């Protein structure tokens, strides 16, 4: 037997190939790509324009941008997850993954590839939103490495939300249902946080929710990384939440994925 000719799975190479495919598919639909990348920008501009004065009558517009920017960065990343999840569900439905499984390709490459592509897109979103935010009054005052942390932390969280999206996709299968289920969840997460108004301005019953809500945890950590103050604890909490999402949803999503691509009959 000629052993050399047998192709073998290569997890990293295969995942990158899948990531390339996912990115190419994203680019095929440039309008949607641009819109989803700039969606948080739209939110940032429009929400701050309408709520700055209401939330903080004493301060200026730039002050509100300074405190609310982390939320819009997170929303930009978070609301990409339903899109990714829908694409993953469509692949499953169309038998793409089952086909990959019949090939000498690392069986998790399609999932990994999606997340890699997604993270790349998220990185672009973060850079764009922060750049515009700086123009509108957002400031980094805690040094270079803290600023780097500010940019990287939401990407980790985004990875966790990506797995969450995949988990839902593995359960619901139908692309529309996936989006329709994730959107309300992400909306609740981003609104019931300390991102738009200070915690003390939320109703009493919401405050404990906002305290533990991962969006708030991330927002507080990002604020600390941008503006200084006690950083260690909020950053550790944010890392913990991201790890919980990545590991928890990751394990469940992979399990659902494996059973979903198992050949029938």
């Amino acid at each position, binding site marked *: 037997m000629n052993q050399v000719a047998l192709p073998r799975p290569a997890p990293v190479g295969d995942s990158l190939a899948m990531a390339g495919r996912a990115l190419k598919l994203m680019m095929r639909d440039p*309008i949607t790509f641009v819109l989803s990348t700039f969606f948080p920008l*739209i*939110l940032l501009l429009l929400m701050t324009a309408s709520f700055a004065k209401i939330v903080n*009558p004493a301060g200026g*517009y730039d002050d509100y941008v300074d405190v609310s920017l982390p939320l819009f960065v997170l929303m930009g990343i978070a609301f990409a997850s339903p899109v990714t999840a829908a694409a993953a569900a469509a692949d499953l439905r169309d038998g793409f993954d089952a086909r990959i499984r019949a090939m000498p390709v690392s069986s998790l490459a399609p999932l990994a590839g999606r997340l890699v592509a997604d993270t790349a897109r998220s990185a672009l979103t973060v850079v764009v939103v922060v750049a515009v935010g700086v123009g509108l009054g957002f400031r980094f005052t805690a040094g270079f490495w803290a600023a780097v942390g500010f940019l990287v932390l939401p990407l980790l969280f985004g990875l966790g939300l990506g797995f969450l999206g995949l988990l839902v996709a593995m359960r619901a299968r139908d692309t529309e249902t996936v989006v329709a289920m994730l959107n309300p969840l992400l909306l609740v997460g981003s*609104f019931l946080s300390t991102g738009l108004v200070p915690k003390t301005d939320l*109703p009493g019953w919401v405050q404990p929710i906002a305290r533990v809500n991962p969006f708030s945890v991330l927002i507080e950590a990002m604020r600390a990384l941008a503006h200084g103050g006690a950083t260690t604890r909020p950053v550790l909490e944010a890392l913990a939440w991201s790890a919980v999402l990545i590991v928890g949803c990751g394990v469940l999503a992979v399990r659902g994925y494996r059973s979903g691509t198992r050949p029938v009959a």
Partner: protein
Amino acid sequence: MTAAAPAATLAGPPPGAAVTDPRPALATDVAVLAGRHLRLMSRRPASIISAIVLPLVFALLFFTVFSRVMRRSGIDYIDYLLPAVVIQTVFFTGMSAAILAAEDALSGTLRRLRAMSVSRSAPALGLLAAELVRSVVSLGVLLAVGAALGFRFHGGPWKALGFPVVMLAFGAALVTCHIALGLAIRRLEAVTTATNLIYFPFMLLSSAFTPASAFPSWLRPLVEQQPVSRVADALRALTAQDAALARPLLIAGAWLLGLLLLGVVGATRAIGRPS
């Protein structure tokens, strides 16, 4: 005729004679097609979520997050917010209409209907009717939850009756425009993108969620004049105790008439396009 035709002996019905002409009957066609859409919507989780869950989620979230800061600015937020989420719901209804219209164009349903004795405008009107029914359901849910959160019609029953009328008029105009959009674009992702590009600026750069006075001064004229703000003004005039009615209703009415015309012209053009 060549002699080879083997079927010469088979007696078919004389063409045309066997046909009792089923005359296009607009009302029946619209009712039947509206029923079709409602049935399909009721089986589609995404439709139910966007008609019932999403409006509620937005109403509850805006109310929860901004009530305190609004009260500081002297605004009772549930009274202010309800017209906003009603308008938002009408936008969701429009998005649904655009997608369903595009789907019918893509799937060949429209073509098939056009080769049948079905009135030409019935597919669009059937969808419109179904979407208006849907928006009434959404309105019911929103009013019930709004009432629980403290929303009241302060202007008495007659003005309260005007509220759904204005909402339906807005719905008719916006849904018609969205049907035109869906029929014109006919690519599902592009339709979603286009509807979002309409929704976000019109909704967020309006006085729906926050008063125009909260916006930076250079934006204020735009925010005050645009149709969504004008419709919000009309709806609020109908819920307030003693606001002037005629002016906001007239301005909103003029906008809606214009939008409706735009939608009718657009849809008429788009529906005739061969697929």
